[in-house]
């Protein structure tokens, strides 16, 4: 198995990194198709986030368990088939349990197969790490993805329909900003979120540089 010890700190690190430091959407800019397509309401965003989490955690577990048995040449096809199996499961379960949401999300549930975040995690992490770490990594990434979906879905629903999770926020006098729930609004809003993250990153770097300079003076 792995040569280095699995300490609690390491497990914690692998779990936490996906939520903020390596957030799959805001930092790595992956998985943008579902990110933009189903975030017109917060509820859709959450349903999509949960379905993606199920597929990601399921396939990471399986890929990590099978990592010594999958031949290198056909690994990508193997991952895709494992992912497609879990997506089929998620698709049928959602159709049976919450048909209304399933109708709303439409083909985008099936399109989780083509989500580059999931395939990326299999290739970059699950196929080279022990199962415990792979599950934690997948869970962290899923939470990061869900967080990003919720940010975008929440803001777009508040501005575009004046409500959150279907509950009206501003009363009947609010003039909805319809463009926000239409496709261009998705692009613009995600652009603004990325701008915010860039700005935060630059500010942090500038502060670190200033601190270094101070340290050099003292």
């Amino acid at each position, binding site marked *: 198995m792995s040569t280095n010890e699995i300490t609690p700190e390491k497990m914690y690190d692998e779990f936490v990194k996906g939520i903020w430091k390596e957030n799959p959407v805001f930092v790595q*800019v*992956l998985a*943008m*198709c579902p990110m*933009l*397509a189903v975030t017109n309401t917060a509820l859709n965003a959450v349903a999509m986030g949960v379905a993606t989490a199920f597929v990601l955690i399921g396939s990471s577990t399986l890929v990590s368990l099978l990592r010594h048995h999958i031949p290198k040449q056909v690994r*990508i*096809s193997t991952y*895709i*088939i494992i992912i*497609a*199996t879990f*997506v*089929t499961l998620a*698709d*049928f379960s959602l159709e049976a349990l919450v048909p209304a949401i399933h109708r709303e999300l439409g*083909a985008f549930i*099936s*399109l989780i*197969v*083509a*989500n*580059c975040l999931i*395939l990326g995690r299999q290739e970059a992490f699950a196929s080279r790490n022990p199962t415990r770490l792979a599950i934690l990594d997948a869970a962290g990434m899923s939470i990061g993805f869900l967080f990003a979906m919720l940010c975008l879905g929440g803001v777009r629903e508040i501005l575009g329909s004046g409500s959150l999770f279907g509950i009206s926020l501003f009363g009947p006098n609010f003039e909805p900003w319809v*463009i926000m729930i*239409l*496709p*261009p*609004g*998705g*692009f*613009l809003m*995600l*652009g*603004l979120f*990325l*701008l915010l993250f*860039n*700005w935060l990153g*630059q500010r942090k770097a500038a502060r670190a540089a200033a601190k270094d300079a101070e340290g050099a003076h003292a």
Partner: protein
Amino acid sequence: MSNLLWIFVGAMVVNNFTLYYFLGLCPFFGVSGRLIVAFRLGLATIFVMIITSLCASFLNAFILPHAPYLKLISFIVVIASTVQFVELAIKKLSPALFRALGIFLPLITTNCAILFLALTQTSKEYSLIQGLVFALGAGSGFTLALVLMAALREEADLSNIPSVIKGTALNMILAGLLSLAFMGFAGLFSAA
């Protein structure tokens, strides 16, 4: 005949896969840096789409009625093998293009536009010909969006832009404006 025309125009501009359905965004942002590379990736995608549409028609006719739960798995296997084939062909025919496309060539497999094409074709019950026209329209629409985006980005590279917005944030806002322009085509269908 007019039916086929509407399928083509609908898939190409009115419900443009990239700007209306948000499909195929990874190559849309990843390969739109250079105009000529973007155009060639578009052509490769059109080719994969047409083959996929053809295979999906056969799968729908002969296999899937007996095993509906295999839909996703069989579609993705078809797409992955077509992409593998295109990759080999391009590597042989144009090594320069092969290097320029890099990782985005195998990633056509995870281009959700292609899977969406196969799924939509199935759910709308298109015939073989309708499916092919749909694939051609969708592929052309993807190429059009990619080329427009690449042209905008080549322009933007030459302008003086604050460093905080450079990169993906700017591309995203450019795409938003492009998508806004494409919304103008939405009137086409109700007029028809």
